[in-house]
């Protein structure tokens, strides 16, 4: 891990500083290869070899798409300097194709559906601090790549370009959270949830593209600020959550939530920091996740003024999907925290857990504090984004520094405003009053009794509500959207003392429908081509001669 960790940081830094396509792609590959090596750190696990293979194939595919996008933007002269691309105005068809390729190339690294399949495999496979970097940071480098190309290198854009971005973003957000809800591996749940947040960011970016195309710079600034602020916020709470999951993994050796439970007692500080991350990612005030999602909804509420009917109809649907995914995200993190930290330990590993070390706690509390600060004083962050946004869309949100009581005002005070400080003070004061009232008027005596179930002592903590139990009602409703679900119940007849068995198999619908046929096709083609290495010398000469004749015929008949 050690040599590749700084290399990975270098790769990400260089992508952000690159000012020509060659340097950008070289740095992008550098970042991909270093992160692949880090994913393979646990290569002795049998699954990780497959994970590494899927990751490197998807990373190469993304780079190829970006290479083609830059090739189209560079034009026949091959001008790979970004300055030349900024100055040029590509034809509408070329620019549309380049945008699509950029969406595929950057989106595959960011984890948009249906190119997300590598992400929930690779992110959890890496050591936890690398998972935090990949999920919290590397996906943002991909967002940067898309924003740089779409808002700067491509020149003026058509309004219809926003449609694939909005649809992809909304679908990614919903699919990501549904996938996450079905997981019982804590790190995989967090990785799938990254997919959801990437969708939310792409919705903000897509709205900004639409508003910019209709020359509405202030609305575009609001949408892009929402997207970029969510990128920053996600990097904070996702790093916090992955480091929290790493602390749990170090203390118990377990990632499976159904093998954990009750960790709030041996690991109270980790539990508190993790809870802050859960509340922030669930977009609950007064934390930062709420602010950026609220700004995204404010941008969606501006879409009725757009002249395009397609966008007028699409935007509310996107808003509804985002609202649904926000609600499901809250359910997902109630499950993640509840099953991992509450209840009774389900295994000896969870029972023997000890609090993590001070440095890990320090970094988790620092990130938790940043989540709170960005939620309570969002105006500072919005004002800091003003130069970024104004360079991209030609406008900025109103300056927030002068707003009364540190409120944020996206458009005008008469329309909507939010004050994180007041919400924080209200929650803090009302919670303190409620707690002191309860302690004053209720008994302080604490009684712990052995658990019981149906009136009899409960012999095993395994009978507790599990991650699977929690997700079951939601799986029944939404599981079919993302998964092919197969349930099999073997219920013995009355009098038969065999235990009843319930088998549940979930397979990824996208993997089965899109990737599995491709893998099968490549395998079949490879096997049939494999025969070529067992030919005789006469057959080889015939093949070479036939190929030569075929090429000459093609060349002669080329118009």
């Amino acid at each position, binding site marked *: *891990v*050690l*040599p590749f960790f700084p290399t990975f940081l270098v790769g990400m830094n260089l992508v952000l500083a690159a000012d020509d396509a060659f*340097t950008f792609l070289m740095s992008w590959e550098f970042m991909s290869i270093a992160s692949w090596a880090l994913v393979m750190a646990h290569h002795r696990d049998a699954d990780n070899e497959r994970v590494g293979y899927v990751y490197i194939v998807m990373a190469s595919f993304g780079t190829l798409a970006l290479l083609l996008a830059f090739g189209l933007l560079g034009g026949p002269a091959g001008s790979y300097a970004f300055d030349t691309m900024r100055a040029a105005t590509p034809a509408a068809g070329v620019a549309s194709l380049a945008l699509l390729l950029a969406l595929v190339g950057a989106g595959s690294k960011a984890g948009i559906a249906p190119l997300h399949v590598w992400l929930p495999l690779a992110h959890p496979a890496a050591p936890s601090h*690398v998972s935090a970097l990949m999920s919290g940071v590397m996906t943002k480098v991909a967002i940067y790549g898309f924003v*740089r190309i779409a808002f700067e290198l491509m020149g003026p854009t058509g309004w219809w370009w926003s449609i694939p971005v909005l649809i992809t973003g909304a679908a990614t957000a919903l699919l990501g959270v549904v996938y996450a809800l079905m997981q019982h591996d804590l790190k995989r749940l967090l990785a799938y949830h990254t997919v959801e947040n990437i969708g939310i960011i792409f919705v903000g970016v897509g709205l900004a593209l639409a508003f910019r195309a209709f020359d509405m710079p202030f609305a575009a600034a609001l949408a892009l600020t929402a997207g970029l602020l969510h990128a920053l916020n996600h990097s904070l709470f996702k790093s916090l959550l992955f480091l929290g999951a790493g602390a749990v993994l*170090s203390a118990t050796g377990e990632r499976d939530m159904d093998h954990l439970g009750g960790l709030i007692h041996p690991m109270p500080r980790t539990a508190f920091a993790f809870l802050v991350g859960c509340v922030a990612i669930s977009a609950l005030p007064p934390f930062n996740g709420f602010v950026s999602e609220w700004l995204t909804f404010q941008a969606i509420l501006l879409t009725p003024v757009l002249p395009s009917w397609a966008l007028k109809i699409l935007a509310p649907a996107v808003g509804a999907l985002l609202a649904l995914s926000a609600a499901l995200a809250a359910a997902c993190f109630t499950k993640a925290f509840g099953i991992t930290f509450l209840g009774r330990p389900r295994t000896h590993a969870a029972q023997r857990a000890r609090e993590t070390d001070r440095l*890990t706690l320090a970094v988790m509390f620092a990130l938790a504090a940043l989540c709170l600060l960005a939620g309570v004083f969002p105006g500072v962050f919005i004002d800091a984004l003003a130069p*970024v946004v104004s360079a991209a869309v030609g406008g900025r949100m109103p300056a927030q520094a002068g707003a009364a009581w540190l409120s944020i005002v996206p458009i005008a005070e008469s329309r909507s405003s939010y004050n994180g400080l007041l919400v924080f003070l209200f929650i803090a004061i009302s919670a303190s009053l409620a707690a002191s009232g309860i302690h004053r008027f209720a008994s302080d005596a604490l009684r712990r009794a052995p658990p019981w179930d149906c009136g009899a002592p409960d012999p095993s903590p395994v009978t507790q509500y599990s991650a699977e139990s929690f997700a079951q009602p939601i799986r029944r409703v939404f599981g079919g959207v993302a998964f092919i679900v197969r349930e099999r119940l073997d219920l013995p007849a009355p009098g038969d003392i065999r235990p009843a068995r319930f088998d549940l198999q979930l397979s990824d619908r996208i993997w089965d429908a899109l990737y599995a046929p491709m893998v099968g096709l490549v395998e079949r083609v490879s096997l049939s081509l494999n025969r070529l290495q067992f030919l005789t010398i006469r057959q080889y000469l015939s093949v070479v001669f036939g190929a030569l004749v075929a090429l000459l015929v093609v060349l002669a008949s080329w118009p």
Partner: protein
Amino acid sequence: MNAVALFLAGDGALMALAVLAVTIAPRPFAPVIIYGAALAISAALMIAAVVHLLGKTPIDRISLPLGLPWIGTRFRIDALSAFFLVIVNLGGSAASLYGLGDGGSERSLVSACCLFFRRSSSA
């Protein structure tokens, strides 16, 4: 100092750290040195990016005679780059600090370099 030059110097230092890590990786003190230095460099780069972003500094550029001969290697830091550099180096600092602590317990696993040797020896 030009902001781009500062960032390239930071990246050079991180690259030197990677080379150092190859040589000292088996030593017990290696994680402290590597993660400690990565923390210091990432934190410095993050502060530089915040200053660049908040200071509304004009766009900085540098062109090096590397890469493709007809364009060289060009670097540029503007507000968009600076914002994402804050995210990258904040995340880098947090991950490095975690690596210094208990998170380093995963460090005992064999480095990915060995993958190549294992593959080539089994081939």
